[in-house]
């Protein structure tokens, strides 16, 4: 990690800065706007997710053809491809219930704090609690599996 390019962290910060400004400008950082979308009162949010995905689709398609390796890490350009299993459906459904109840998702919650919404700390606290619950449970399960396998 000490070999990281000196511009690595500054670039991550600038990327986050643009990302967060966009979430503020689009009002996706406001739970009310997300709830209005999910309640079919304002479909504008489709343009936030769609607009962002169009830009990444172009970037992820074009950049690997222009350059061999990323300048700040030396890594090759890959795509974000995750394996499919039932966790995608189970986790997606649990996330959906939470998103529909609160109107907030992780990135938008960080941005919401930035626009002054201190009340969103409730959601952020909840997200850490939820992430801890599933991580604790899955870590314990992984360990008990390993120890069972070791005993056999």
């Amino acid at each position, binding site marked *: 990690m000490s070999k990281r390019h000196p511009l*690595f962290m500054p670039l*991550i*910060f600038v*990327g*986050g*800065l643009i990302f*967060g*400004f*966009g979430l*503020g*400008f*689009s*009002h996706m950082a*406001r739970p*009310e*706007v997300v*709830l209005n979308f999910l309640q079919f009162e*304002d479909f*504008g949010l489709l*343009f*936030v*997710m769609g*607009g962002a*995905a*169009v830009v990444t689709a172009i*970037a*992820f398609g074009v*950049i690997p053809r222009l350059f061999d390796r990323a300048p700040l*890490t030396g890594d090759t350009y890959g*795509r*974000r491809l995750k394996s*499919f299993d039932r966790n*995608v*459906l*189970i986790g*997606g*459904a*649990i996330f*959906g219930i*939470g*998103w*529909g*109840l609160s109107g*907030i*998702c*992780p990135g*938008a919650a960080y*941005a919401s*704090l930035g*626009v*002054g919404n*201190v*009340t969103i700390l409730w959601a952020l606290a*909840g*997200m850490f*609690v*939820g*992430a*801890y619950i599933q991580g604790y449970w899955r870590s314990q399960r*992984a360990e008990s599996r390993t120890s069972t396998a070791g005993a056999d």
Partner: protein
Amino acid sequence: MVTELFAPALYESLFPAGISRYAVGGLLVGLGAAVIYLGTGIPAGASTFLESTLSYVSSQSRFQQYVGSRDWRVVFTLGIVAGAAVYALTVQSGLVSSGLYEPGTTGQLYDVGGVSLWLTDVQPWRLFLGGILVGIGTRIGKGCTSGHGVCGVGSGSKTSFVGVLTFLIVAVGTAQIVMALGVSP
């Protein structure tokens, strides 16, 4: 113009706040992800931060697997908070105005030293309980709105398409039920 493709009344009911602030904001979200990808090759999502940050305080194996990326994920999140704060200082405060920006009527604006900040009206119990489910679900489901929705879909990942479809449909159903039960805001 997109406006002219619809009957004005229909457009008005589908997009009461117009589409430009949404589209411009979305393009910027994508641009932020693209800048990080161009420099580092990383397709960044926002929800891994929750687990990677827990690795500072918990030795559980599930969190420790993210030790290598936890530092930059903190920087990414601080960037998101700062970027939204720049928006609050400029556009939300009226210092910068644009025909592409529709101010909106949700929540409460309050003033701190000449800067317009914003507060939600959504009740804390909804945020906290919903937050817990978001924390569990995004981590089990391998991604959130940015990981699956922006980077995954942008990668043409079938897993991400299915993930987005799942959380979108369930979220619509949940929000409709909560509204029907008379919970507001």
